[in-house]
């Protein structure tokens, strides 16, 4: 009983983690399926077919490539713009602060269909042909708010005395920003960028409105494929992306630990 009480948090934590991961486990399992027909719905037989040929379905790997590219550019751009806004909001008092806060928050409250379609109308009015560029613009727009919210918290908790110390130690404004401010806010920016990347990588509705036939992203591909049963390759790619993220973090951590050990 007391064991249960002591470990309750761990037990609940593990259960919730399981809840979060359960669908991914299903996705992983079905990446090893060998469906009899063209629908990967029912478990039929274990097979590595899809794993040995992940790009086997036409277009799927191009779409992943495009999504990665868009996710990267969009999240990085949103990170830069969002960080600047976050600094302004977290650091300064100025007229229009409340309005700015509202403007940051509204896109999160706007239904995606609405955003996607009204943006498309705008692009046409502006004469911007749909495609990679318009997807990027849209993604940067909706990622911006998430970056701002994330980074602002970090900026607000930054100790201004550290910047003063840098100035005291002969660092001019630019050096102070690059050598002290930025590294200290970096974890917040990293978190915001990661969040933005995952939002961009996974967006369908807004993307679909602003895409062209040449710019089919991974979610668009999946959406289409899901209309008539997703090919096993999609599970493979989902699994690779999922595990890839984990491996990168683990590798980073191991590397960091090794470096620490060498120093110590």
């Amino acid at each position: 009983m007391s064991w249960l009480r002591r470990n309750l948090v761990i037990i609940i934590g593990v259960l919730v983690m399981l809840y979060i991961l359960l669908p991914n486990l299903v996705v992983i399992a079905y990446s090893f399926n060998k469906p009899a027909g063209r629908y990967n719905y029912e478990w039929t037989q274990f097979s590595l077919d899809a794993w040995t040929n992940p790009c086997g379905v036409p277009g799927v790997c191009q779409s992943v490539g495009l999504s990665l590219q868009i996710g990267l550019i969009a999240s990085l751009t949103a990170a830069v713009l969002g960080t600047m806004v976050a600094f302004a909001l977290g650091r300064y008092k100025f007229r229009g602060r409340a309005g700015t806060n509202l403007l940051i928050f509204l896109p999160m409250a706007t239904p995606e269909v609405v955003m996607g379609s009204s943006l498309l109308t705008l692009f046409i009015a502006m004469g911007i042909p749909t495609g990679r560029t318009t997807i990027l613009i849209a993604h940067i727009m909706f990622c911006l708010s998430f970056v701002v919210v994330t980074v602002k918290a970090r900026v607000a908790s930054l100790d201004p005395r550290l910047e003063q110390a840098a100035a005291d130690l002969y660092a001019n404004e630019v050096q102070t920003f690059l050598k002290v401010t930025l590294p200290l806010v970096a974890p917040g920016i990293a978190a915001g960028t990661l969040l933005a990347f995952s939002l961009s990588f996974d967006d369908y509705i807004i993307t679909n409105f602003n895409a062209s036939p040449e710019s089919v992203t991974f979610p668009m591909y999946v959406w289409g494929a899901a209309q008539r049963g997703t090919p096993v390759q999609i599970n493979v790619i989902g699994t690779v992306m999922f595990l890839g993220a984990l491996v990168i973090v683990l590798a980073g951590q191991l590397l960091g630990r090794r470096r620490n050990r060498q120093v110590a």
Partner: protein
Amino acid sequence: MAERASGDLVLTGVTRTYETFTAVDNIDLTIPQGSFFALLGPSGCGKTTTLRMVAGLEQPTAGTISIGGQDITATKPYQRNVNTVFQNYALFPHLDILENVAFGLKRRGVSNWRVQAMEALELVELAHVAKKKPTQLSGGMQQRVALARAVVNRPDVLLLDEPLGALDLKLRRQMQIELKRIQSEVGLTFVHVTHDQEEAMTMADTIAVMNGGRLQQVGDPGTLYEKPESTFAANFLGQSNLLRATVSGVSQGVASLDVHGVAMTVPAASLPDGGKELWLGIRPEKVRIISDSADATGLNTLKGEVTDVSFLGVATQYLVAMPWGRELTVVQQNDGMPRAQLGSNVTLGWVPENSFALDASQDADAGAEHIEDE
């Protein structure tokens, strides 16, 4: 790039006002090159603000600051050859200790920064933790890193804002010795802010006592302690017994006083200008408990009852109640001699030359830092 402008640090009419509140009020001060200067005063009196103006982190509302005759009032912090050891250390958490110390050197493009930074770390005996992060260090170690980070730049002036404020007593005393050693080794001008009066006295060549944004008194520790010019200085720098006295006459350089009906004397030279009323001050350690047999001629004496005895280790502190209600504090070194008992009636005495006289218009409790008015 910082310009070398070695020489005295001079503040002229420096004032800093925040909206309606004047934090620093028209300060004139000359701090000779190479001296160890302490700025002492209660919380909120403007010490940090003064330092920040010298460092360039704050702009004076009025007045000028110069080093070695060169006016630096308008220059940016990074253009001044002044470094600060911040009250809270302000070490860069993302850099390791060596990088922290080397920060200023690198900014100035010093090429052998590694060698110089390691030397500075050796100076504070921390070379072995060069690769650790600040959070992995204890408070005392962090403080020394902050010191090394500032000292390594060989600034014209080193500002120390209560660098020992967060240390415990024992470590604090050791760091004081360390600071003194470093100052004499590298020969910089140190401006040291503290509100620990004992710290100021043991370390500084010159002490300035500040209150409410103004300088109260500037001088060497001995003079400030033995001859305070205000009740504030008298109370803030150590303890003082202040007795209400009326001058009854002056002859041959000696003033006769009436203290609650008891006749006393004080050197006439120490009398303040103005009226006949004054505060007669005497330090607790200057008061002796006189045995019945002893000769009390030439001493000012008072009789009272011992109401409290506390053993301080090195010394014992007595509170002795006077007939008019007020208590006198007496400190006697525990040199092995027998001492007074709680409740006994004793005679207190002191050499008139050891006392001082202050203008009676002041508040006797100024600077005594009562709990209510922190």
